[in-house]
């Protein structure tokens, strides 16, 4: 199945990079709905630091694509004001590690205003953030950030594990009537995969995707870990272990049902996460299965980051971010 994410596309699909899938999602969403507009640093005239907005300023103009000052909290708050008054803004946070500068707007304002108003208002804002390690960027520019908002109920949270995921999740987020944070992974930007575009290709909110069907072990992963889990699955297939890989896709709503169904079938569960375990979605899934008394043949295993900060030094970064080999080893351990 790693072929699925890398090589020739099935009928009707084009093969594009993950970052191009993001760009196409933005383009198609803007074409489909003229209330959609983009705000972010260097995204207009220069096409974005990760080239995820190339051409959109020329195509849609200065009233729909804004180069902002470096003021993340401010422009996410501005997005809220736009959303309350009928627009559908998408803000770009260049690196997940810059999300904390905008926490008040994203975690405390966006998800709570509708509720406090007793349902009078709504806030269809999409916040995009690129995160993740592997680029040797060091401690303040390598976090995925994916679980940072889990405790802030009221936000939906999506994580893109493939070009199709990046496209479908982003389009779903933009069309959604509530605030959504969509994470992508920097190290996947140039990775190619098949993509089918279209207004009917929005991901279903809160639905995990089975990236590879398998009978023996369930591996649940997000972002780059989806790819690494698929790699591990390929390697394990030759050892006779048939791995099911679930691209969790949404952290809220968290699709515990799909995971539980799969784990009930395979009897074995491995979490692959590019984050610390405590406070993350992986721990939440394991805890929910445990409290639901989900029957497993062996205890679940989490492949997470060790509790150290990320250095830009390559051997250290490589040792911290779960590799396909570490995931495979975890799978083997639950099969023993």
């Amino acid at each position, binding site marked *: 199945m790693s072929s699925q994410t890398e090589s020739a596309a099935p009928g009707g699909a084009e093969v594009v990079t993950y970052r191009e899938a993001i760009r196409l999602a933005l383009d198609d969403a803007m074409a489909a709905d003229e209330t959609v507009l983009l705000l972010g640093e260097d995204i207009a005239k220069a096409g974005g630091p990760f080239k995820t907005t190339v051409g959109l300023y020329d195509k849609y103009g200065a009233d729909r694509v804004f180069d902002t000052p470096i003021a993340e*909290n401010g422009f996410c*708050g*501005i997005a809220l*004001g736009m959303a*309350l008054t009928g627009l559908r803004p998408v803000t770009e946070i260049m690196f997940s590690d810059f999300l904390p500068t905008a926490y*008040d707007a994203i975690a405390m304002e966006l998800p709570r205003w509708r509720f406090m108003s007793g*349902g009078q*208002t709504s806030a269809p804002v999409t916040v995009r953030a690129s995160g993740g390690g592997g680029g040797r960027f060091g401690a303040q520019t390598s976090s995925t950030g994916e679980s940072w908002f889990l405790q802030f109920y009221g936000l939906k949270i999506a994580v893109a594990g493939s070009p199709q995921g990046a496209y479908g999740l982003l389009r779903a987020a933009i069309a959604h009537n509530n605030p959504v944070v969509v994470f992508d992974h920097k190290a996947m930007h140039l990775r190619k995969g098949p993509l089918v575009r279209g207004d009917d290709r929005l991901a279903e909110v809160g639905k995990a995707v089975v990236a590879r069907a398998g009978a023996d072990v369930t591996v649940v992963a997000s972002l780059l870990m989806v790819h690494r889990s698929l790699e591990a699955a390929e390697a394990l297939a030759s050892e006779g272990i048939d791995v099911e890989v679930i691209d969790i896709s949404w952290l809220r709503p968290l699709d515990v049902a799909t995971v539980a169904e799969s784990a009930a079938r395979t009897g074995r569960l491995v979490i692959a996460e590019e984050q610390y375990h405590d406070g993350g979605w992986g721990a939440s899934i394991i805890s929910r299965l445990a409290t639901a008394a989900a029957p497993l043949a062996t205890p679940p295993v989490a492949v997470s980051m060790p509790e150290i900060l990320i250095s830009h030094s390559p051997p250290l970064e490589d040792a911290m971010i779960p590799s396909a080999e570490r995931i495979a080893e975890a799978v083997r351990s639950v099969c023993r």
Partner: protein
Amino acid sequence: MTAPSQAVLRSWLEQMVLIRLAEDKVMEIYMQGLVPGTVHLCQGQEAASVGAIGALSVDDWLLCTYRGHHHALARGMDLEAFFAEIMGRDTGACRGMGGSSYVIDASLGMIGSPAIIGAGIPVATGAGMTARLRGEDRIAMCFFGDGACNIGAFHEALNMAQLWRSQVVFLIENNQYGEYTPFRDSTALPPDAPIAHRASAYGMAHTVVDGQDAIAVHEVVAQARAQAVAGDGPTLIEAQTYRYRGHSRTDPGAYRPPGELDAWKERDPIGILAARIGASGEVDEIRERLQRDVDEAADRAAEGPWPTLDQARNYVFAD
């Protein structure tokens, strides 16, 4: 800009009296145990809200704060919905979800009143952008306190508002204090400069107005509104005013120098407007009449049912 008619001025006077009575009532029912949580009252600050909101069109959006009772009432919120909200009832303006600090009516253009200092300033800027991008004759009116001028959101929002010519008007209700700290102890400014001076950092228009004088406030807001709608950018207005009560329910205001409150009360906004429009003799009559409305609304509100958890669940997410 045409000057407000005598009838309009008269209606402002009534609104200000109404706000004063309603706030006193909030205090009264608080003491009776009918108000959960705390309240931030605004007695003394009526002119800033009434004058400013008097300059708005029905389409304009309002961004308020936890100290927002006067804005809601000046904008014409239903009195029963107002009291019911503060009492946490299902019949409240926000179905009892918001409470005293979040009492808004979106059908009147009130789009939020966050408890977090400064959080509304970018939001108003965004609403003003919607107006600009759609080319509408409409603004976002943003109220906040003197204390909010020191938080990062103020700076970020004002910069973008000016850069993008957002159709927004910023109004600082400078009531002299944050919670218990005089604003000059927390706000670095050139000697004797008003807070509004900070707008000059962004090349933004700014002005200071006597916040006890509704007509004066109306004038500067009307002017700022016209400028914003014309695409000439926002204005930062500082209305100098005073809150008669402490910061919140538990604050006796012990940090105030002796005599300060009394000096401000001599410049009471209701008295000033009444005098300016030659209606000083009518205030008592107005008060009596409105007192009945207030009492009745509060009584009806107190009958309102509590919301349920299932209702609340539905307010989190839109469909």
